[in-house]
């Protein structure tokens, strides 16, 4: 299958069409590319690929810790097609899109083609992709396919044939745009050689058309763990769509709404990447967690325009394709060979092209490019850019640039959005509730790993090297008790001898236990926050939840490695927190991040200290008078503080007063009061809804009381700390109710059996 392309060109050894060469000669339109690539030393090509790839992380969208983007194998060698060659591809793609859209309009409407036998009944009725609830039995639905993709291969005769249609939720348009950008960045000179038709104009026109409906258009994503999330993120970015998940949306009054901090805002245009049968648990698969209950009815009524329509996967049926006269059909023979760059020179491999067509308003336009791929050495896909060269003649009316009058309104049905729509919300009010929730929890999780990380480091460092001084053991034990209080280790694991293997195992277990799990939860929030935080802050979070978590995993068996990994993790959060502080704008939810951090610090500190003050501890650390070091860790106090504390009669009491009473220490409890107050004030200023004031006042009261008691050494400190943590939990719940969960998750009220309580 593989042919080498050393110079001179290899003799033709197969009957496959050769994209680059004909009759032993380089085809002229390949000359500039060929020279640009082959002229450069392999090392330089590899460097430039790496440089292009950097663009991924700069965008922030490719930066996912579990996203091994080395698996995204880019080939610098594009597939180059002349205008005349592209004309053939475009005609096939346009013709198929038009025919398949007409077919689906009939099948989800009058079904005349089934009744008259044009389409075999079985190909519709026996196909689970035919979604009966989407059929409009009394009319003809509007456009079903707005974005279409076809996979094409060129046969030995030089003609392109379609090997797969994509009508449901075509993948790869974002990847095509990204491929073009990354390679153009890595190989600016290469991209300067030819007159390459640009992709951007069509994308810009489509973005205009999507936005023309009035509301902010959205991309409905199944979420970041979707295998094609990168493709979705790029597409949303380039088309100016809000990248939302099912939980961001709700149906009310038969219409679709986005749950934003400022309330519900209407949505009428949705680029859909959730599969049809999962899109509505009410009418389609009831077990779907990715659905929006009521979406099918809203779509059928025309109040929501879905790209593509629900049920469009039926258009991918080979049986239906066979029944239609579609261009680009028929058996193809061996696919054509395209040049692939390898460090050892060019290789020739069979190539598949994915081309895209878009209905911009009602005109079908073909993206002048796309993606192509060849099989790599390990079976992976090697992706290449697709160049369409400009025609020599100036007139190219193959792809009309002029946009006809918008007809979207016609598709949208009689009673779509009200004529006088309220102005779209701006600033904080426009922020999706789920995003605010993610920022809040990023703050909470970050401070949670910070507290348990510092306590774990403290305890482990005291146990790193025997023999142990009594002070070290008491200190390690105190840190462990506080870890138990903060919920990082099980209470039963926070007691007992500190010197033994069990204690060490429990402490080392934290790295993959509570800390690892919290980092994993933080990781899950990154995509929701990625749109709102600066690139640097985003990368710092990715690094923390990815590489640092990996280090913790690898270090868990050994104290020194664990201490290094904890150091790196704590540095990682400190860096991320600092960058987030500066990198989240106020109208992007900075207050939620700050509130999350302050609440978590309040809860963590209070619970940890309450645990150490537990009189049931057999040997009270306080009476032992040696655990103040572990307490000072909570406030990240410097050595100077330690000396000052030691100079007092009651070191533990002094340490407590410092951690609880000093407003100037950002990690101390007293500083959390002002932080909470500032956060709620920012929300009150940015959003027109009441803030949970009573819950705030309760927390502030508790914090003040704890500081007072700590200063005077009075009784009841432990109980007060417990009350403080409880009050902070209640404030967290109140914030959640007020801002995040306008609606909880849906669940299906199962089909009522025809056999009711008892009976047939």
């Amino acid at each position, binding site marked *: 299958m593989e042919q080498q392309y050393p110079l001179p060109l290899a003799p033709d050894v197969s009957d496959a069409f050769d994209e680059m060469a004909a009759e032993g000669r380089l085809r002229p339109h390949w000359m500039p590319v060929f020279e640009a690539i082959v002229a450069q030393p392999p090392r330089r090509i590899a460097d430039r690929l790496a440089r292009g790839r950097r663009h991924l992380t700069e965008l922030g969208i490719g930066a996912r810790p579990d996203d091994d983007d080395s698996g995204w194998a880019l080939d610098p060698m594009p597939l180059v097609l002349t205008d005349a060659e592209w004309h053939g591809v475009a005609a096939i793609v346009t013709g198929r899109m038009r025919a398949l859209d007409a077919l689906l309009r009939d099948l989800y409407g009058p079904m005349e083609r089934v009744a008259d036998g044009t389409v075999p009944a079985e190909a519709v009725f026996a196909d689970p992709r035919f979604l009966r609830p989407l059929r409009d039995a009394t009319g003809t639905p509007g456009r079903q396919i707005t974005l279409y993709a076809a996979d094409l291969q060129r046969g030995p005769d030089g003609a392109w044939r379609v090997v797969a249609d994509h009508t449901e939720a075509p993948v790869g348009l974002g990847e095509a745009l990204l491929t073009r950008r990354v390679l153009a960045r890595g190989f600016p000179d290469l991209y300067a050689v030819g007159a390459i038709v640009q992709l951007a104009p069509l994308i810009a026109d489509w973005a205009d058309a999507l936005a023309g409906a009035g509301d902010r258009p959205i991309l409905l994503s199944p979420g970041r763990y979707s295998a094609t999330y990168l493709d979705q993120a790029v597409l949303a970015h380039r088309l100016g769509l809000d990248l939302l998940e099912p939980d961001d949306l709700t*149906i009310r009054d038969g219409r679709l709404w986005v749950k934003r901090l400022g309330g519900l805002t209407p949505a009428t245009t949705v680029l859909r990447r959730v599969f049809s049968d999962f899109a509505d648990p009410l009418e389609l698969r009831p077990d779907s967690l990715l659905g929006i209950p009521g979406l099918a009815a809203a779509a059928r009524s025309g109040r929501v325009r879905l790209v593509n329509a629900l049920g469009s996967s039926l258009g991918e049926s080979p049986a239906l394709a066979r029944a239609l006269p579609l261009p680009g059909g028929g058996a193809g023979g061996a696919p054509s060979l395209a040049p692939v760059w390898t460090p050892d020179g060019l290789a020739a491999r069979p190539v598949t092209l994915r081309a895209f067509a878009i209905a911009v308003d009602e005109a079908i336009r073909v993206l002048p490019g796309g993606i192509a791929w060849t099989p790599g050495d390990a079976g992976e896909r090697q992706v290449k850019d697709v160049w369409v060269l400009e025609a020599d003649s100036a007139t190219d009316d193959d792809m009309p640039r002029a946009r006809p009058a918008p007809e979207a309104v016609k598709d949208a049905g009689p009673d779509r959005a009200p004529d006088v729509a309220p102005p779209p919300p701006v600033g904080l009010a426009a922020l999706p509730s789920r995003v605010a929730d993610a920022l809040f929890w990023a703050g909470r999780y970050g401070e949670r790993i910070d507290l348990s990380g510092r306590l774990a480091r403290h305890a482990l460092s005291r146990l790193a090297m025997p023999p142990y001084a009594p002070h070290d053991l008491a200190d390690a034990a105190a840190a462990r008790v506080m870890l138990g209080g903060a919920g990082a280790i099980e209470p039963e694991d926070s007691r007992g001898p500190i010197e033994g293997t069990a204690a060490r195992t429990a402490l080392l277990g934290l790295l993959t236990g509570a800390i690892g799990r919290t980092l994993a939860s933080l990781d899950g929030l990154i995509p929701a926050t990625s749109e709102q935080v600066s690139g640097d802050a985003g990368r710092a979070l990715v690094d923390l939840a990815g590489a640092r978590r990996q280090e913790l995993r690898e270090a868990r068996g050994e104290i020194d490695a664990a201490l290094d990994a904890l150091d790196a993790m704590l540095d990682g959060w400190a860096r991320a927190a600092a960058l987030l502080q500066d990198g989240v704008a106020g109208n992007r939810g900075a207050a939620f991040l700050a509130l999350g951090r302050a609440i978590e610090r309040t809860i963590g500190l209070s619970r940890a200290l309450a645990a150490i003050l537990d009189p049931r501890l057999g040997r009270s650390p306080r009476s032992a008078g040696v655990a103040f070091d572990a307490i000072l860790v909570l406030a990240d106090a410097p050595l100077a503080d330690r000396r000052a504390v030691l100079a007092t009669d009651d070191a533990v009491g002094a340490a407590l007063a410092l951690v609880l009473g000093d407003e100037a220490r950002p990690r101390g409890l007293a500083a959390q009061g002002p932080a909470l107050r500032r956060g709620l004030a920012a929300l009150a200023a940015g959003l027109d809804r009441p803030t949970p004031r009573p819950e705030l006042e309760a927390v502030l009261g508790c914090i003040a009381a704890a500081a007072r008691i700590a200063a005077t050494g009075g009784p009841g400190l432990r109980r007060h700390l417990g009350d403080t943590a409880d009050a902070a939990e209640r404030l967290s719940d109140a914030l959640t109710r007020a801002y995040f969960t306008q609606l909880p998750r849906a669940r299906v009220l*199962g089909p009522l059996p025809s*056999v009711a309580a008892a009976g047939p």
Partner: protein
Amino acid sequence: MIRYRIRHATRYAYGQPVELAHHLLHLLPRDTPRQRVVAAALPCTPAADWRDESLDHFGNRVARLSVQRPHDSFAVTLEATVEVRPDPDPSPQGPAWEAVAATLARPAAADAVRASELRHPSPLVPALPALAALARRGLPAGRPVSEAALALARHIHATFAFDPEATDVATPLADVVTRHRGVCQDFSHVMIGALRAAGLAARYVSGYVRPRGADGAAILRGADMSHAWVAVWTGGGWVDLDPTNDCRVGADHVTLSWGRDFSDVSPLRGVLLGGGEHTLDVAVAVEAVDEPSA
């Protein structure tokens, strides 16, 4: 005509408030060659904030109700008046069922094409070897469809036990066939599966049956509940048979909706936000009014 008054009340009580509920109801009767709907309404409490009615793929009436503010319970009642032709369908001496199956395998006429939809397996009625075996035993060779199907209904009625405790709505058909027991929904799915295994087109009909037969004596199973039976395509039209009661569908049955199986015509479906645990009360009253004296 016999005039029926139907009252089918459903009430959900929720353990915690429901913030938002969307309900999908196949609970409005349709006109059929045998029946005429005089009046039908679906009042509910609390009142729906949004409501919509349309026809589904099979021509059934579908109602959608949304309650968009917190509520602790939801009650919806079908109040309908329906007139049913008293005489049973004539028994057409059509072609043998094997010939009808052959027509459906390569349907040409529009009505055969449409009917052929109902010969394929469906979500709750998969193809099972046991159903094919049942068809071989239960369908007498060479007989017209309506006659053969009635024999099959009789066979199922004789070999399956009516047992409300044996199954629930989630019981797979394979288990029903193994255990040989179930309720009207199961009897209907079994018969549909056997008819489809023989290449015939069969649909699931949901509706009601009056508590007393027209002769004033027999108590039919399925009264005071939602009921279900089967319709089979004869080559010229559809004939309804009730395998649970081993009878043809006549003056005692009122049709709500039909589809491939229960999943297409479940009387109530809903998606709730919130709610916790819930309890359910259902009451069905089918009453003949204005009946011509026997």
